[in-house]
C-alpha cells in the first residue's frame, strides 16, 4: 500500500438487514405476475423483489413479513422498506407499514497494523476463539453489545451487530484490544 492511500480509518457499513410487517396477507402469485423485478420461489414460498434506487433485496412472505437486505445505512434501509411497501400498495394490497426493526448490521474496518492472532487469543481468553484449521480469523464476541467481531491477521475487522446504534461503540473495542 502506498503513502497516498487514505489516512483516515474508514468504518464501512456494508450491509443492513431489517424486517417489517404489512399487516395483511399478500398474494405471492399476484406479486410475481404483476410486480417488477421479482423472483418467485414457489418451493420455499417466498418472493424476492429487488429495488434499484436504494439497492435492496427484499424477501416477501405471504404472511406479510418482509426482510430487506443490502442497504448501506439504517436510514437507507427504512427508505427502501417504505418504497417497497408503497410498491406493494400500488399492486393493490392494503399495506400498513408497521414493526420496522433493524435486525443486523455488518461493517468492515481496517486497522493500520497487523495482529498476531495466537497471542491475541491468549490475552482475550473467554471472548476470543481462534481455530486456524477452520477459519483464518479470530471470532471475538462482545456479549454486552451482542456483537461479533472477526479479526484477521492483516488487521481488517468485520463487525456484525444486532443493535445498530451501538455500532460505533463496538468499533472502539478493537483499539482497546490491540
Amino acid at each position: 500500500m502506498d503513502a497516498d492511500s487514505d489516512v483516515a480509518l474508514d468504518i464501512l457499513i456494508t450491509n443492513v438487514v431489517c424486517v417489517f410487517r404489512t399487516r395483511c396477507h399478500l398474494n405471492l402469485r399476484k406479486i410475481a405476475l404483476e410486480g417488477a423485478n421479482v423472483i418467485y420461489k414457489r418451493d420455499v414460498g417466498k418472493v424476492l423483489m429487488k429495488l434499484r434506487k436504494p439497492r435492496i433485496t427484499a424477501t416477501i412472505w405471504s404472511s406479510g413479513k418482509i426482510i430487506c437486505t443490502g442497504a448501506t445505512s439504517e436510514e437507507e434501509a427504512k427508505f427502501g422498506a417504505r418504497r417497497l411497501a408503497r410498491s406493494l400498495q400500488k399492486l393493490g394490497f392494503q399495506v400498513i407499514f408497521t414493526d420496522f426493526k433493524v435486525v443486523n448490521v455488518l461493517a468492515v474496518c481496517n486497522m493500520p497494523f497487523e495482529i498476531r492472532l495466537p497471542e491475541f487469543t491468549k490475552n482475550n481468553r473467554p471472548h476470543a476463539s481462534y481455530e486456524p484449521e477452520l477459519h483464518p480469523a479470530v471470532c471475538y464476541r462482545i456479549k454486552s453489545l451482542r456483537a461479533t467481531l472477526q479479526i484477521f491477521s492483516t488487521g481488517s475487522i468485520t463487525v456484525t451487530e444486532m443493535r445498530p446504534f451501538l455500532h460505533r461503540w463496538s468499533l472502539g473495542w478493537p483499539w482497546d484490544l490491540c
Partner: protein
Amino acid sequence: MPGGGRCPDCGSTELVEDSHYAQSQLVCSDCGCVVTEGVLTTTYSDEGNLREVTYSRSTGENEQVSRSQQRGLRRVRDLCRVLKLPPTFEDTAVAYYQQAYRHSGIRAARLQKKEVLVGCCVLITCRQHNWPVTMGTLCTLLYADLDAFSGTYMQIVKLLGLDVPSLCLADLVKTYCSSFKLFQPSPSVPAKYVEDKEKMLSRTQQLVELADETWLVTGRHPLPVITAATFLAWQSLRPSDRLTCSLARFCKLANVDLPYPASSRLQELLAVLLRMAEQLAWLQVLKLNKRSVVKHIGDLLQHRRTLVRKAFRDGTAETEPQEKELQEQGQGQGQGKEEAPRGALQFIGSRSWSRSQEECSEAWVGGSPIPWCQRAGCIYSYPVGWPSS
C-alpha cells in the same frame, strides 16, 4: 378385629381378615363361617397405581445408558486406542461424551452428528492436554466431512462452555515430522534420501519458528507450513543429492499426503530466506536464487535472529521483532493510559500503509479524530463520549 362385626352362625365377634388367594374374605375364627367376600376382580381405576408404565415415561430412560450412547462410548474408546493416547485421556473423553449426551440437542441429533461428536470429544481432550492432533486426522479416521466436524465442534464447545487451548505448534511439528518415513532405508527410499531424525527435527523446528516470526503462520492452517519447512530442512541437509527432488515427490517418498497450500508456503518461506541471505555479506556476492539458497539454510538459521531484524527493518516488508514489541506495548497501553510518543520509528508494513510520523498523528474513527501513537499503536486520549473499556 374389625369392630361391630358378628358372625351370623355362632354370634362371635372374632372375625379375621383372611384372604383366599386373591380374594379377600372376612372369616369367623370360631366356626369358620365366611362373613363377607371381597370382589375378585378390580376396576380400571383401582388398578391405577398397579398398571404398567411405558419405558419412555419412566425414569429408567435417564438412568440407563441408551444403545446409541453405548455405541458412541465404545467408539470413543476405540478412537483413543487407535490414536495411542494415554489411558487418562480415554476417561476424560468418555466423560465429555456423556456430558454432551445429556443435552437434548445432542440426544435428538442424527446419527452422523453423534459419530462426529466422538471425534470432537477426543479432540477437546487432546487439546486440553496439549497432545497435538489435527482435525484433518480425526476427519479421515471418522470418514467425516470437515464442515460437519467443525459445526459439531463449535456447538459442543459452546454447549459445554469449555475453554479449549489452541494447537501447540512445536508438538505438532514433532509428531508430524516423526510420521515421515525417511529415517530408515527401504526399497522405495534410496540411501541418499534417508536422513537422521534428530537433525531433521531440530532444523524443521527452527524453520517453523522463522515462519512464525515472519507472519507466515498467523491465520493459516499449520500443516502446510510444517510440510514446507520439513521439505526445506530435508533438502538443506544434503542439497547436492536432494535439490532435484520436488515437494510432491518428497511427500510421496515419505508416504505423507501433500496438503494443497504447501507449495505456496514453500515459495513464501524461500522468499523470506532470500531476503535474509541478502543481509549476509558472503552470500550477497553469490547472487542466490530460490534453488541455491537451500544450500545455505544452515548458515541462515544460525544467525536468523539478527538477519530477520536486519532484513525486515526497512524496505517494504514488515518489522517482526519490533512488531512484537509494538503488540506488547499496544496491549499494555490499550487499557486507556495516556503516553507520549516515543522515538521516531517509522511504521512500515507491506500489508499496511507506510507513512511518516507527522502524517499519522490523527486517525479518524467513527467520525471523530483520535490522536494515536503509531509506534505503540495506542490512543493518546479518547474523545468525549467514547465508551470506557
